[in-house]
């Protein structure tokens, strides 16, 4: 495990750079995580980030892209527009959660 500094906060990350402890995440970390992932957060991003945080807290796992789409009523196309390239991973990263494990 490695400790890295993001937005002035020391956080534990795995060898890929994902936060290993969701408790170390706070809302003031998200803009910097987003910047590192090449994103600039809008209210649309925040709505999804809050869903990811709540869903992870409730179910103990990071929701897959499809779950985010169906549970928030957001078209998958829009998720790709908001988090281009690797949306599931980027959403998880900015939300301070592990990569989703589910296949679909």
């Amino acid at each position: 495990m490695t400790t890295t500094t993001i937005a002035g906060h020391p956080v534990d990350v795995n060898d890929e750079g994902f936060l290993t402890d969701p408790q170390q995440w706070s809302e003031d970390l998200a803009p910097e995580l987003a910047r590192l992932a090449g994103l600039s957060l809008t209210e649309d991003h925040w709505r999804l980030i809050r869903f990811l945080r709540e869903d992870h807290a409730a179910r103990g796992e990071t929701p897959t892209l499809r779950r985010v789409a169906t549970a928030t009523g957001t078209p998958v196309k829009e998720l790709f527009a908001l988090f281009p390239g690797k949306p599931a991973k980027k959403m998880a990263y900015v939300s301070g959660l592990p990569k989703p494990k589910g296949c679909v």
Partner: protein
Amino acid sequence: MTAVDTAPLVPSFDAPEGSGRKLAIICSKGNLDMAYPGLILANAAVGEGVETHLFFTFWGFDIITKATMADLKFSFVGNTAMHPPGHSGLGVHHMLGALPGATTAATMLMKKQLADLDVPEVPEFLDLLVGSGAHLWACRMSADMNHLTADDLHEGVEGIISAGDFIELTEGAQLLFI
């Protein structure tokens, strides 16, 4: 052991579009259990930023045909999987698999397992892939053999093209034949 880094360690989010990674998946079988591997792998690839193309040919054409796509079957007959979905240790004699109702029961069982895992049914899965930016292509020869046109196919299918066209547009792609 804990190391302290000053520069933040960031996952690699570089979309592989830059690296030109492409995946071509040829779906040639229309059984329920042969449709899903291609769809799931395509979904995984497109979610990783890989340019993904699927080519539906021969029985795989059923996956994108409106009349059949919601009604694909899992059968024990002629199948390498000789056990009911979810019951790996339980063998089914191949003659039993041919009894009336066996395919219907096995199909229902598999569909329930997929639904329990929140895996969408085939038509919705195609919507998901299209929404994610995957490209769906129908095989010209299969369309001709089945006397079908674009109107008979899922709306997300971009075109009915020849095998040669598909090979051309997936130049340099990694290839999966299912």
